[in-house]
C-alpha cells in the first residue's frame, strides 16, 4: 500500500519529535508522525492501583527487555555494563521520565577548547538559550531563579517543595560551603494552563496520572493534534528509503497496526527515535548507495554512545525524612564538582543529585534500576523498619566522554515482533568516568555525614546502576566535518540532504545533566534552521 506524500514525516512521538513538529507548525506543511507505540490515556497509568509498585517490574518497567511489549524492541545488552531504558508510545520516554530539567552549561559545548577532550559542538549555549526558554514555556517548568551555576534565566513557576529531605541535605551543603540549588523540574508546582499541579505522589516513572509532569503526551501532543498534525500510532518504521537517482530520502517502509508493510513517501524525513532507536533505524536502512547503513559514510552511525553512568550513596538519619513524598528525582542538585578542576585527577565533572527515596518494594529489591535484593531474615526487618524510613540518598551523575568503541550495532539474530533486527549495545566505562564516580562517592559520603547522617551506605566497588541507561546520546553526532560526524550543525545528515535527526543521538558530548531540556531545545533550533533555510534546504 502506498500513501500520499507528506511534506514532513517524523519518526518517533517522544520528546524531540514532538518539539520539532511544534516548531514546524507555522509553515503549514503537512506533517505526519509515525510512532511504534500506542497513545496511552493517563487512566491506564498504574499509580491509581493499590499494588502500583508491581507495574515497575512488568508493563511499566523502564527496561524494554523486561516489559517485552509488542511495541518494544529488545536490546542485546550482553556486552554492556549499563542497560538502556526507555518507553515506546506517544510521549516516548517522557512517559516514564522523572522530569528533572537542568540545562547544559556554556562549557559543555566547548570541551575541546576548554579541556582538550572530545569535540566542541557546532552550536553554543547562547544560540540555544532562546530555544531552552521557548521549550520551557511549552512544557511548564518549576524552579528558583538566580542559580549561580548558570547564566541568568528564570523558570516560570515557583520551585517544587524540596521537603524535609532536601532541607536536611541543603544544610549539609551549606555546612561544607558547596553549591546546591532546588532542582529545575518539568513538573508543575501549581495549576498551569489547564493542567493540574503535582500531588507529590513520588511515582513519576509510572506515568504521571495527575498530568503534572511535562511528558509530551501532556504538553506538545495535545497542541499538535489540535493544530492538525497527523499521528499514526502502532506504526513501526522498518527502514528509510532513498531515491537512487537523487540520493534523497523518499520516505519510509513501516509496519502498521494491521501487521502489514506500508510505504509512506515524504519530502523531508526526521528521525526522533532516541539514541538507540535512531542508529538502529539507519543501520537497518541499507541500500546500494548506502551499503553500511543510511547516512553512514563516516562510519560514525552508532558510535560514541554516551550514558550518564551513576552510582548512589545513602545516609541513615535519626528521624524519618519522608523521602517518598514528592517527585522522584527532583529535590536539590549540587554542581559543585561540575566544571573541570585538574587537581581532581579527571577532566569534566559530575552532579550530586538528591533523588528522593523510593517506595518499599523497590527499596527491598535493591533500589530503582538495580536488581540486588536487600538481605532476608532478621536483617531484613531491621533494614525496613529502622533504615528505610530514615534514608536520604545522593546520586553521582557523571559526564561520559565519547569513545568510538562504545556503540550501537545490529544484532545478527535478535529481532522485534515485526522481525526487524534489534540493536546490540557494546559499552564499557572509561577510566575518566571511573575516577569521577570514585571522587563523587567520596564527596557524597562527606556531604551525608555533614548533613547529620549517623551512617553511610555506599553501593560498593564499581557499582554503577544497571538500568541507568536513561540518557542515550552521541550515536549520530553533530559536526562540521562529514568524515567525523553524521549531521551538520543544524541536524541535517551530511550524506542525505532531506534527512534530519533531532534526538539525543546528535549530542557531541553529554554534559553531566539530564538531557531532555537540551534535546528539545535543539529540536526547536533544528526546526528554526529548517524554516530559515527553507529555500535552499536540500542544496
Amino acid at each position, binding site marked *: 500500500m502506498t500513501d500520499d506524500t507528506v511534506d514532513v514525516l517524523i519518526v518517533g512521538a517522544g520528546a524531540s519529535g514532538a518539539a520539532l513538529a511544534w516548531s514546524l507548525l507555522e509553515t503549514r506543511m503537512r506533517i505526519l508522525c509515525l510512532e511504534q507505540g500506542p497513545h496511552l490515556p493517563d487512566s491506564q497509568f498504574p499509580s491509581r492501583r493499590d499494588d502500583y509498585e508491581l507495574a515497575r517490574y512488568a508493563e511499566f518497567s523502564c527496561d524494554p527487555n523486561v516489559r517485552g511489549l509488542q511495541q518494544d524492541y529488545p536490546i542485546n545488552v550482553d556486552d554492556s555494563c549499563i542497560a538502556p531504558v526507555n518507553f515506546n508510545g506517544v510521549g516516548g520516554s517522557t512517559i516514564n521520565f522523572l522530569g528533572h530539567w537542568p540545562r547544559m552549561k556554556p*562549557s559543555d559545548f566547548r570541551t575541546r577548547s576548554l579541556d582538550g577532550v572530545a569535540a566542541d559542538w557546532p552550536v553554543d549555549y547562547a544560540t540555544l538559550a532562546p530555544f531552552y526558554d521557548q521549550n520551557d514555556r511549552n512544557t511548564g517548568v518549576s524552579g528558583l531563579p538566580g542559580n549561580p551555576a548558570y547564566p541568568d534565566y528564570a523558570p516560570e513557576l515557583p520551585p517544587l517543595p524540596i521537603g524535609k529531605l532536601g532541607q536536611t541535605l541543603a544544610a549539609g551543603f551549606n555546612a561544607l560551603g558547596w*553549591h546546591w540549588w532546588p532542582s529545575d523540574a518539568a513538573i508543575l508546582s501549581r495549576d498551569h494552563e489547564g493542567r493540574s499541579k503535582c500531588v507529590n505522589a513520588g*511515582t513519576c516513572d509510572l506515568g504521571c496520572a495527575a498530568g503534572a509532569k511535562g511528558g509530551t503526551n501532556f504538553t506538545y501532543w495535545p497542541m499538535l493534534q489540535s493544530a492538525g498534525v497527523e499521528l499514526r500510532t502502532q506504526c513501526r518504521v522498518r527502514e528509510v528509503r532513498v531515491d537512487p537517482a537523487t540520493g534523497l530520502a523518499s520516505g519510509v517502509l513501516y509496519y502498521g497496526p494491521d501487521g502489514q508493510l506500508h510505504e509512506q513517501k515524504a519530502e523531508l524525513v526526521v528521525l526522533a527515535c532516541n539514541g538507540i532507536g535512531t542508529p538502529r533505524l539507519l543501520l537497518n536502512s541499507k541500500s546500494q548507495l548506502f551499503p553500511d547503513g543510511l547516512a553512514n559514510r563516516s562510519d560514525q552511525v552508532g558510535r560514541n554512545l554516551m550514558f550518564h553512568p551513576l552510582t548512589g550513596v545513602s545516609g541513615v538519619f535519626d528521624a524519618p525524612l519522608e523521602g517518598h513524598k514528592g517527585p522522584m528525582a527532583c529535590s536539590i542538585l549540587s554542581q559543585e564538582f561540575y566544571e573541570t578542576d585538574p587537581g581532581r585527577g579527571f577532566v569534566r565533572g559530575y552532579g550530586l543529585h538528591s533523588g528522593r527515596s523510593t517506595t*518499599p518494594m523497590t527499596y527491598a529489591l535493591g533500589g530503582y534500576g538495580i536488581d540486588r535484593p536487600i538481605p532476608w531474615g532478621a536483617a531484613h*526487618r531491621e533494614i525496613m523498619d529502622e533504615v528505610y524510613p530514615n534514608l536520604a540518598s545522593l546520586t553521582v551523575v557523571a559526564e561520559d566522554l565519547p569513545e568510538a568503541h562504545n556503540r550501537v550495532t545490529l544484532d545478527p539474530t535478535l529481532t522485534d515482533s515485526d522481525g526487524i533486527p534489534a540493536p546490540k549495545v557494546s559499552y564499557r566505562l572509561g577510566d575518566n568516568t571511573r575516577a569521577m564516580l570514585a571522587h563523587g562517592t567520596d564527596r557524597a559520603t562527606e556531604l551525608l555525614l555533614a548533613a547529620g547522617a549517623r551512617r553511610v551506605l555506599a553501593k560498593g566497588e564499581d557499582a554503577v546502576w544497571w538500568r541507568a541507561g536513561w540518557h542515550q546520546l552521541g550515536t549520530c553526532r553533530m559536526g562540521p566535518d562529514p568524515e567525523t560526524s553524521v549531521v551538520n*550543525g543544524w541536524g541535517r545528515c551530511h550524506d542525505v540532504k532531506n534527512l534530519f535527526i533531532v534526538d539525543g543521538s546528535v549530542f557531541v558530548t553529554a554534559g553531566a545533566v539530564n538531557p531532555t531540556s537540551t534535546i528539545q531545545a535543539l529540536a526547536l533550533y533544528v526546526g528554526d534552521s529548517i524554516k530559515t533555510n527553507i529555500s535552499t534546504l536540500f542544496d
Partner: protein
Amino acid sequence: MTLILEPSLRAVLDLSLDLLIPANPARDIPSAGALGVADFVLRTAQAAPADAAHMAQILQALQALDGPPTPDALRAVEQAMPEAFQTLLRLTYMGYYSRPDMREKVGVASWPVHPKGYDVPRESSALMDALTAPVRARGRIYRDAVVMTGDLS
C-alpha cells in the same frame, strides 16, 4: 508449569517465607508466611516459565529438608541454588510489599498514590532565601565558553 502443593509442603513454604521476612511483634508487623504471601509467589511464578522452574527447584529442596525450615537450612538452599533462591526472594518481597497494609507499616501511605498523593508544603520564600543565601553569596560558579568563529554547519 503448574505448581500444586500438598498442604504439608505449603506449610513448609509458609514457614520459609516467615524466615525471609520475619514479623516485628513490637510494631504489629506480620511475617510473610503468616500473611499468605505464598499465594502471590506461586501465582506469579506460574505466569513466567523461568520463575516457575526456579520455584519448582525451591519446592523440591524444601521438601527434602529434615524437619521445619531454619535460617541455616535456608542459607544452605540459597548456596546450593542461588538463582532459584533469588527468584523466591524477589517474589516474596514483591508479594509482601505490594500489599497496601504492609506499605503503611514502613511509613508509606496505603492508598494508591494517585489521585490523592501527599501534602508537602512548599518552603516559604523567606526560608528558601535563607537556605540559598550562602550559595548566592559565593557568586557565579560556571565557566564562560570560548567564542568560536567561522561557519561550522
